[in-house]
């Protein structure tokens, strides 16, 4: 018991924290709240959900129409996923800008958390079994067929049949349920690794002199962050709950009718745009995975004196270009594959990756 | 000032009375808050709500 208190004490109360970390450092704790919201709402949804292709869509309608507060649980879970990604992108961007990636173990565990979260969100999106769920699952699982030699075997192994059908939905539900718990474990490691050396700070300087205790300063700062997030989250949930939802997903899945524009949720659009920019199928799939995994190269290619990008005007500009590229790729991902958008997408893909390729040579420019 | 003193001595000083006050005031606050917001809501959407249209049609 005493030991447990000691852990809490070391994590949340007496933890020495840099005094100068800005509001950009709030997003870690906000992501913890996102996970909590998703876990709780998800458990309640699973009590009424039926993972079968004949009933999944109708069980969701049952949840929204008949279950007490079912409509609320459902939109919280759906928009909560979007919120999770929104803040995770900001959190990652913070890490890239301020050089937090130099803590290699934290960075690698964080990247793995992001990949796991993406897998979880993809699996969860299939569960309502609407048109976009079904066709999204079909398109994304089909990507694996690009793997030479093993591809087709792998795809039917994942499907558990010859197309996306009942076994696929069943196993997606099982994995969607279990992955968040694995995610919790990974987040614990993420935190343990972080607390080995403590948080980085906006100056990126080694800061051992000016540390303050986590409580009351950061408990209350985080609380303020939570309140801001809650008010925005509740506003979206109550005023425009289906803002980010694709209208196609209100139609039950039909393997005979392909929707005119198949596109994933907004948080995958950047990766989807990169995938479609590469003419070769295998190359596209590789680029898709590389778009996330390439952030792992950052700690190994960084060779500048100061951690934080705020010390280098060039890095600031490059980072701003990177962010706008990310947003423009998200926009391109929602566009049909037509002449102006194909070329724009390809240029943006090159700019996206070149941010990481330029990184090892920055010391020459910043001299 | 004496009010604050009385408040402290009679309510905040002991955890038992403090907790009781919180529970009792939460009950009354929620009741008042719900009635207040619903009254505003009914006034805001006057003439559009079901109760209003039923009154109108039965006249």
């Amino acid at each position, binding site marked *: 018991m005493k030991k447990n208190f000691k852990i809490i004490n070391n994590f949340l109360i007496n933890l020495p924290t840099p005094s100068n970390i800005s509001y950009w450092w709030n997003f870690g704790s906000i992501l913890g709240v996102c996970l909590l919201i998703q876990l709780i709402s998800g458990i309640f949804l699973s009590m009424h959900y039926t993972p079968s292709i004949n009933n999944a869509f109708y069980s969701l*309608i049952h949840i929204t129409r008949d279950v007490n507060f079912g*409509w609320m649980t459902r939109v919280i879970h759906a928009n909560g996923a979007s919120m999770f990604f929104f803040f995770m992108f900001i959190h990652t961007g913070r890490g890239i800008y301020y050089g937090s990636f130099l803590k290699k173990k934290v960075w690698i565990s964080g990247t793995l958390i992001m990949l796991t979260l993406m897998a979880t969100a993809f699996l969860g999106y299939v569960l309502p079994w609407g048109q976009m769920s079904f066709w999204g699952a079909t398109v994304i699982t089909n990507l694996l067929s690009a793997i030479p030699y093993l591809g087709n075997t792998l795809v039917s192994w994942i499907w558990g049949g010859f197309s996306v059908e009942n076994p696929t939905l069943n196993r997606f539900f099982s994995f969607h349920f279990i992955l968040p718990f694995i995610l919790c474990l990974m987040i614990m490691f993420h935190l343990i690794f972080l607390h080995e050396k403590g948080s980085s700070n906006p100056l990126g300087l080694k800061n051992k002199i000016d540390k303050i205790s986590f409580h009351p300063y950061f408990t209350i700062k985080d609380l303020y962050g939570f309140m801001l997030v809650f*008010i925005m989250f509740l*506003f979206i949930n*109550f005023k425009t709950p289906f803002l980010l939802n694709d209208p196609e997903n209100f139609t039950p899945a039909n393997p005979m009718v392909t929707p005119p524009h198949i596109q994933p949720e907004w948080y995958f659009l950047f990766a989807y745009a990169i995938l479609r920019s590469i003419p070769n199928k295998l190359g596209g799939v590789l680029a898709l995975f590389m778009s996330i995994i390439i952030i792992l190269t950052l700690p190994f290619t960084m060779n500048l004196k100061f951690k934080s990008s705020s*010390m280098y005007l060039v890095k600031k*500009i490059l980072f701003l270009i990177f962010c706008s590229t990310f947003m423009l790729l998200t926009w391109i991902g929602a566009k049909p594959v037509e002449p102006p958008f194909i070329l724009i997408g390809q240029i943006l893909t090159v700019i996206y990756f070149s941010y990481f390729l330029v990184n090892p040579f920055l010391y020459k420019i910043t001299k | 000032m004496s009010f604050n003193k009385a408040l402290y001595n009679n309510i905040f000083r002991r955890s038992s009375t403090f907790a009781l006050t919180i529970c009792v005031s939460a009950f009354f606050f929620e009741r008042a808050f719900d009635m207040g917001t619903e009254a505003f809501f009914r006034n805001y*959407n006057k003439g559009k709500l079901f109760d209003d*249209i039923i009154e109108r049609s039965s006249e």
Partner: protein
Amino acid sequence: MAASLGRLYGNRLLKLKPSSIPKQICLYSTAQPWTKGRKAMLTSLGVLTGGAGVLLYALENSVKAGDLELHPPKYPWDVTSGLFSTFDHASVRRGYEVYKNVCAACHSLQFVAYRELVGQTHTEEEAKAEAEEAMIEDGPDAEGKYFKRPGKLSDYIPKPYPNEEAARAANNGAYPPDLTYITMARHGGQDYIFSILTGYCDAPAGVTVQEGQHYNPYFPGGAIGMAQALYNEIIEYSDGTPATQSQLAKDVTNFLHWTGNPDHDTRMLYLLKSMIIMSVLVGWSFYWKRFKWSNLKTRKIFFKPPPPPPKV
């Protein structure tokens, strides 16, 4: 302008920041030895990138000649008119009459039960009477036979066709979709449904519409299987509202948006409640944060050089 700004902010501009850190950062800045041209080049690069983004955004929002369908204009719906606006339940009730007398001939409304009308469009007695008008297939009875009985509140609104094949066979191969979530399941939502219902016109020159199809510029592709359903005075409203075509279309669109969002009015009430409570909590936590941090934010840091090493 500048003078009043100076009066307002002069003191604050003069005041030194308690932290000396920003000045130290200036010393570290790698941009100091740069030539003016280099700074200008990098700035213009940034401006160009931002400008390109703005241009793309402007293009995205202005040029929409990509496809041949007409995008519906935005209409002022009851639910979008104000922050906490509910449905106009009188309109929803009229919309139910339109659905029952016009749409129900081909379109199902399979997820709506008569009990859901209670307290939304009809009183309990009225909803019971509505349910009893419909004959619902039930069974099997004690002898294993299916039979028809008058509907109850717990019954769902019956479908016009037993299955999709029967619906297609009766409608030239076109399937009339279920209408429960129709405003949610179409791009453009209520505006689209209203525009479809009122947008029928003769096909323009050069466009041929096949037998059994009708021209509607709002429908993707232009040729829609559904014939124009709403005309002036096609039904008579029980509350005496003049049944013009646009009135009919507006009411039925409102009704169909309600069937897709039966929780909408509750949501608006919760929006009001949660915004009040959360603004108090945001304000309180903001104050608490500033309060707790005040001693840290107002501290002064001095650099005390270590004593010089003693002379030997």
